[in-house]
């Protein structure tokens, strides 16, 4: 029963002032703001509106600078909570109404959440704390014909080039985070052993079910 679960939004004084701010905004403009916020929700370090855009928003809504920031923060928080618990659109509307948001604003939230929900959750799942993520694997296959002390060899070999990307999006470290490339060479037997290892991993993956 919905009554048993704790409310999604704890009514702190700051949250209440956010609600009031959202209530005061023109309903027609709200969905656009929300969609914009939804696009960068999964990236903690990036702002949804840069400075220029934030000024424009001030002019459009007629609010002061702090009020606009409050508005953006409030909407972001609502969407983050909704994503964290992956609530249904109805559930979200209900919770917002209980928190004191006007009906038309609740409807606006519900509509945006319905359309953006899946993408937000998928983007959030992609986020990882680990430093290096495999980006791509390139390969080339060679036939070595001769070398310094031996000619007329016919020896096939495969070179795999792994490109890893750092998933750390901290702006300070961005310059240090370059793609790292390393190459590994295999002959037929070695590649086959590698493939068998990958098969073992696959078997384990198949065993997972949830």
């Amino acid at each position, binding site marked *: 029963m919905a009554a048993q679960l704790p409310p999604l939004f704890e009514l702190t004084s700051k949250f209440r002032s956010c609600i009031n701010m959202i209530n005061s905004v023109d309903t027609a403009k709200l969905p656009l703001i929300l969609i914009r916020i939804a696009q960068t929700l999964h990236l903690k370090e990036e702002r949804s509106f840069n400075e220029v855009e934030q000024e424009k928003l001030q002019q459009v809504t007629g609010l002061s600078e702090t009020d606009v920031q409050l508005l953006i923060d409030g909407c972001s928080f609502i969407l983050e909570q909704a994503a*964290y618990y992956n609530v249904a659109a109805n559930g979200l509307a209900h919770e917002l109404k209980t928190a004191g948001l006007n009906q038309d604003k609740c409807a606006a939230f519900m509509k945006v959440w319905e359309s953006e929900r899946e993408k937000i959750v998928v983007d959030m*799942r992609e986020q990882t704390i680990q430093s*290096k993520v*495999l980006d791509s694997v390139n390969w080339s296959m060679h036939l070595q014909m001769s070398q310094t*002390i031996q000619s007329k060899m016919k020896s096939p070999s495969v070179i795999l080039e792994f490109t890893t990307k750092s998933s750390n999006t901290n702006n300070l470290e961005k310059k240090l985070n370059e793609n790292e490339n390393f190459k590994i060479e*295999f002959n037929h037997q070695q590649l086959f052993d590698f493939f068998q290892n990958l098969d073992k991993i696959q078997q384990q993956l198949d065993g997972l079910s949830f």
Partner: protein
Amino acid sequence: MEETTFFGRTIPSEVKQLSGIITQLEQNQYRKAIQCVIEVFKSSQNSISDQQFLTLAKTAKCPQRAFAALYTAIYFILRFAIRNKVKIEDFEATLTLLELPPPFIADLKKAYQASRPTIESLAIERRARQPQLTQLKWRIDVIISTNLLNRAMKPLIMLQIYLDDGSIKTFEISIDKFHELRFNISRILRDLDDLEKLPILKIE
């Protein structure tokens, strides 16, 4: 009548000179030289060091210049033969053509036959290569929740690759990339199989 030797179109001058001096040398002298050449091939040195050469010349009781010519000629003959995988009959035929003394030819032939498999396998081991994989460690994680999502339920694979140049590469792979990797590798293996069946590879 022109007969081709296993040297190709022209016989190296170092080898041509051999027939002049070889008649003056005794068997135990050139035997030592042959042994030494074979040892150099087997070791990772590219050529004999000056020290070794001088001691060898002394023990063979041979004047240095003659010995140098002898050593160089033997080195050339054996190097050519091994690199081009010359058949033993052709080897013998060419040496006879060069008018070298029969006991010398017999010694060279024996040395060639005996050392050939070892040297060929050493060649394969020592060629210039990119780093190779010595060990692979892996694990599968399932991310249950993060600061962004209460129920994330995302499986993740971590690989740790040990390479023979000493470096260790650790990274994670998402499930999609893993499937892509596995697919590509199975495709490469199939291409390798096709390649090895091609007739061109069967020519020895």
